[in-house]
């Protein structure tokens, strides 16, 4: 596949992710911070997000598995996850966290367990999609092309 085709495929894929709400404008902000001097910035931030999120999801699973759930602790973890997902533009994860926090406030164990499943689901979806997106970018760069800037009209 030649570079132009790969670039078009990337643009289409990225646009779909925005349309489907997986990513929001903050992701574009991150892409704008990447340049020839910092060509791996997005990959680095996204990797940090993955590591951070997986740790938080583990902590959440453990915290909700306790006989006496400490909802303050649970909320603290969700707050962190909400923050980092917001910072990279992972909109659906962020929204799932917002819903999660509401149920933490209510101290509703069943609802929070469901929320955890929902957040995990959204996280793995966006992880998958970001990995695909970054792989497409990598292929373009390896073929000597540049990563096209997407204009979403934000």
């Amino acid at each position, binding site marked *: 596949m030649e570079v132009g085709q790969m670039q078009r495929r990337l643009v289409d894929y990225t646009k779909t992710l925005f349309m489907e709400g997986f990513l929001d404008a*903050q992701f574009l*902000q*991150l892409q*704008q*911070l990447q340049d020839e*001097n*910092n060509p791996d*910035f997005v990959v*680095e*931030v996204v990797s*940090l*997000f993955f590591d*951070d999120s997986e740790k938080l999801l583990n902590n959440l699973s453990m915290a909700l598995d306790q006989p006496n759930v400490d909802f303050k602790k649970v909320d*603290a973890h969700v*707050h*962190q996850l*909400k*923050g*980092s997902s*917001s*910072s*990279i*533009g992972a909109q659906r994860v962020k929204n799932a966290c917002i819903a999660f926090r509401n149920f933490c406030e209510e101290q509703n164990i069943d609802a929070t367990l469901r929320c955890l499943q929902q957040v995990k689901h959204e996280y793995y979806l966006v992880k998958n999609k970001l990995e695909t997106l970054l792989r497409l970018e990598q292929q373009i760069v390896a073929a000597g092309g540049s990563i096209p800037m997407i204009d979403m009209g934000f």
Partner: protein
Amino acid sequence: MAVNGAVTWLRRAEEIDGYDLSASDSEEVHVLAVDDSLVDRKVIERLLKITSCKVTAVDSGRRALQFLGLDEEKEANGFDGLKVDLIITDYCMPGMTGYELLKKVKESSVFREIPVVIMSSENVIARIDRCLEEGAEDFIVKPVKLSDVKRIIDYMTMDFREGEERRGGINKRKLRDDGDDRFSSSPPSTLSSSSPTAPSNWILRPDVSK
């Protein structure tokens, strides 16, 4: 006046990798960024660097105070090699909150003049007001964008430049002419807040005449 040098030097400093500028170099705005989130630290660091700032990023209010030399366990040691021009801190942090850090800074006779900007994901008016009342310079709602950082840095450097004018230091019109090409929204300036003697950065521009 070699104001050309100041503008181009700011650009150069970003491109020169590992160039060892003198320890007391205060021409770049040095920002102390405080955030317990690793992801957010990485982003704010990049945002600040792209705005031509020098950045020190720490993960807690405690470490911020240690860096400033304000930690109770260590007395201020007068270490001014890395002078801090701005503190930008997250509000919600375990241990010491950004608000508590703000208070400690404003209570210090040595550091109270350093502008402090608070970042928070919660857009709560009461919180914002509380911070502003305590002396915060500004409040950014997360997620932080490049326009937020540019606004803060512009505002800071503009303040200084106007101060310079009053002291009769810099030809403002000349600066603006040089600046417009380089930075669309950030007017350049010699960013040192010490008195405007010839900064060491001009060594990098030998063709500049003073």
